[in-house]
């Protein structure tokens, strides 16, 4: 909406009067003075440019997911305890954790008025799981029967175009057959890649319309009000879906503003030209804390940073469990997270992140507690000083130098060890060398969850044949505990087995957990009730105007 000059001056004067009177009331929407590009009453949310068009199965980064989260609702969502609860799903049940029957609620509708039916989920999942469509979220479907026929691997031709493990029973029911039992399956279903797609999205069977990603039809509380042109448009405009089953959202419209620089966005937030940021630049944390007070958000996010060891193929110090423990105990996690990361990270004390149920505070125990004297004694007892210089590999392009250097200094001072930080150009170099068993030293590593289950922090990283098992850790007892957890009757029961598996990792320490990532956000005076979920998505449905 274009605001005329006169109107702007009037609004400006009104603001001035407020300021002079030192009136603390947040009262009327002061933001109306700054001429927003779209709807004047829209809540403005910071994002980076989504890397792909707005297609659920092709979105694995947070900015695109943020927008899609406003446009779509999934089968489940996550409550304050990070446990899944049903949204579009009426029930998700399985007698054996292998064959799942998913029933849908009545009344959810697409933005074009059609009802959401089981076929919409099956179509969407088939599309994403099809290797030929090169969707980023493809790997989420790897546990469903028939996936291998669609993704046979290099040089082979796929023998199917749909997942044989998905079957539509009727309009409101479909079944999913997994390759192996997995009690945590429902926890996966709230993720962006599992959203349904309407019939209108497809040009023909298995082929998306080219313009769908710029103007998606969703089933969520907001709908696109103006088609978005990726690469050109700087805002994605959405308005409230008046016909949403769960009721109307409390705000009329949401405008996602694309920024390239977080500092700029933060200045816009301070000036009142932006309403919500769910990540802040590290250098702004202290300003944000003092300036925003209650409107500053700090909560755990799903990432963990580790120091890893090639425990089978590496140098002598990497193979020795006591040396690994000594190194872990010599790292001053508290100081590093507070000074190097200005509080955007917190010390890690478990291999399972605080954002999933199953995390136990202090689970890592002594091994993750800073104790230089004990660390040194253990290091010497294990023969550490004779094992040569400790290498710490990291990629130079990701802002890791500072904390790696800090860790190196800790080890030098506390263990008396020789330490050589070893930067390489790209993280992929380290991964390739580890894969080829040519990387002898330690390396930095990080993990961000795919779905909020403790299993996701264990199997891919430490399980035999895990997709990201770079340490070479292999333990039958560990694998068995995971299988036991997968086959459990309920999510809660599964968690117990996973925690036992977690304990085995803590005993052996193939990786050392160093820090948990944090979500640092802030919001303006114009909004309230801002909540961020473990995927770092803002719950815009419940945001209110203040």
């Amino acid at each position, binding site marked *: 909406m274009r605001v005329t000059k006169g109107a*702007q001056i009037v*609004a*400006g*004067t009104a*603001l*001035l009067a*407020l*300021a002079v009177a030192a009136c603390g009331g947040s009262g009327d929407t002061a933001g109306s*003075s*700054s*001429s*927003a*590009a779209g709807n004047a009453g829209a809540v403005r949310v910071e994002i980076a*440019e989504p*890397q*792909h068009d707005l297609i659920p199965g092709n979105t694995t*980064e947070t900015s695109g997911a943020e927008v899609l989260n406003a446009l779509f609702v999934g089968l489940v969502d996550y409550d304050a305890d990070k446990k899944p609860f049903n949204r579009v799903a009426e029930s998700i049940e399985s007698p054996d954790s292998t064959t799942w029957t998913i029933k849908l609620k009545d009344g959810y509708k697409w933005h074009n008025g059609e009802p959401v039916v089981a076929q919409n989920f099956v179509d969407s999942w088939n599309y994403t799981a099809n*290797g030929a469509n*090169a969707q980023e979220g*493809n790997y989420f479907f790897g546990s469903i029967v028939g996936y291998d026929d669609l*993704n046979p*691997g*290099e040089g082979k031709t796929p023998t199917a175009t749909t997942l044989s493990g998905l079957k539509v029973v009727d309009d409101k029911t479909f079944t999913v057959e997994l390759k192996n039992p997995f009690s945590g399956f429902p926890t996966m279903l709230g993720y962006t890649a599992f959203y349904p797609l309407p019939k209108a999205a497809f040009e023909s069977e298995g082929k998306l319309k080219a313009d769908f990603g710029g103007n998606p039809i969703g089933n969520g509380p907001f709908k696109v009000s103006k088609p978005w*042109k*990726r*690469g*050109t448009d*700087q805002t994605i405009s959405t308005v409230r879906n008046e016909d949403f089953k769960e009721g109307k959202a409390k705000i009329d419209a949401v405008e996602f*503003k694309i*920024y*390239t*620089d977080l*500092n*700029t*966005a933060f*200045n*816009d937030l*301070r*000036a*009142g*030209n932006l309403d919500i940021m769910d990540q802040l630049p590290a250098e702004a944390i202290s300003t944000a804390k003092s300036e925003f007070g209650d409107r500053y958000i700090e909560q755990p996010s799903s990432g963990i940073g580790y120091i890893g060891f090639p425990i089978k193929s590496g140098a002598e110090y990497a193979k020795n469990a006591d040396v690994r423990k000594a190194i872990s105990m010599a790292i001053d996690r508290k100081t590093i997270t507070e000074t190097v990361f200005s509080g955007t990270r917190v010390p890690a004390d478990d291999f399972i992140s605080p954002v999933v149920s199953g995390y136990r505070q202090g689970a890592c125990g002594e091994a993750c507690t800073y104790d230089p004297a004990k660390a040194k004694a253990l290091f010497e007892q294990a023969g550490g000083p004779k094992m040569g210089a400790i290498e710490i590999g990291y990629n130079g*392009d990701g802002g890791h130098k500072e904390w790696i250097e800090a860790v190196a200094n800790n080890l030098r001072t506390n263990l008396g060890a020789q330490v050589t930080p070893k930067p390489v*150009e*790209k*993280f*992929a170099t380290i*991964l390739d060398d580890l894969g080829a068993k040519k990387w002898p030293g330690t390396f930095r590593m*990080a993990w961000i969850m795919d779905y909020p289950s403790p299993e996701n922090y264990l199997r891919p990283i430490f399980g035999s044949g895990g997709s990201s098992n770079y340490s070479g850790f292999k333990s039958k007892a560990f694998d068995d505990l995971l299988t036991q957890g997968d086959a459990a009757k309920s999510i809660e029961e599964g968690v117990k087995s996973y925690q036992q598996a977690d304990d085995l990792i803590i005993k052996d320490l193939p990786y050392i957990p160093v820090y948990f990532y944090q979500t640092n956000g802030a919001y303006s005076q114009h909004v309230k009730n801002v909540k961020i979920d473990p995927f770092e998505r803002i719950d815009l449905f419940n945001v209110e105007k203040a």
Partner: protein
Amino acid sequence: MGRYVLRRLLQAIPVLLGTTFLIFAIVYALPGDPLQALAGEKRVDPVFAAAMREQFHLNEPLIVRYGYYLRDIVSGDFGTTFRGLPVSTIFEGKFQVTLKLALTAVIFEGIIGIGLGLWAALRRGRWEDKAVLAVTLLMVSIPTLVSGFVLQLMLGVKLKLATGIDFFPVAGVQDGVRSYLLPGFVLAMVSIAYLTRLTRTSLMETLRADYVRTAIAKGMPRRRVLGRHALRNSLIPMVTYLGADLGTLMGGAVITETIFNLPGIGQQLFLSVYLRENPVVVGIVTVLVLIYIVANLVVDLLYAVLDPRIRYE
């Protein structure tokens, strides 16, 4: 004149070929696999990677790839990004933003730079002159990155919060001309300082020339001496600088556009280098070189207007 222009344009062809090849080679020589950048820190799916390498000729030698690129460019096709977006779509509207920004900067330069320079030259040796020298020295020494963030914070955030004056937007282009004022000034700052000093020196030199003394001796009005004789003859170095600067400003917009979130080619260049979108980087640089060449040509033609002794054929 026409033949001269034609000859200059023909000369531009080898320049264009050379620069694009250089930038092409440099961009693709950057360490790291552009396809890896697509996957972040995950491994790239081998099937996907193979298909992409095939599509973008990444397995062929550099010179062959450059050949493909040239072939497409000549037919007006800037190619597509690794994320499947046509580069021409990315360019849409972006050059306008940068051009508007650069023009705002040039206007600031012209008015403030030449104005301050004239004033200093006429007040030669007095405190006004010394103040101008000191201020310009300061302006040259502050990096754009610093002045950008500081001015954004002071005028965009603090001024608004303290007084309610919402004149300088923090970011974006939604406020029309106002959106470009602050970024334009920040972008121009260093150039303003240079131009001020250039104008000052150049004018001071002409003022000491024999023909100016003669004119004064003949009793010509001071205004006419200054405008007609001194200023016009000292304009050549300034025009050269301004012309060349337009190109520099468009390229130098990277930092300014990023700070003020202006969706121009500078910001795009920053993003594309970061995301390893090589086709976009090469495309932008090619267009920048073109603009540079044209700006220089215009400057050369202006010489003839300013100094009738100069003739082109």
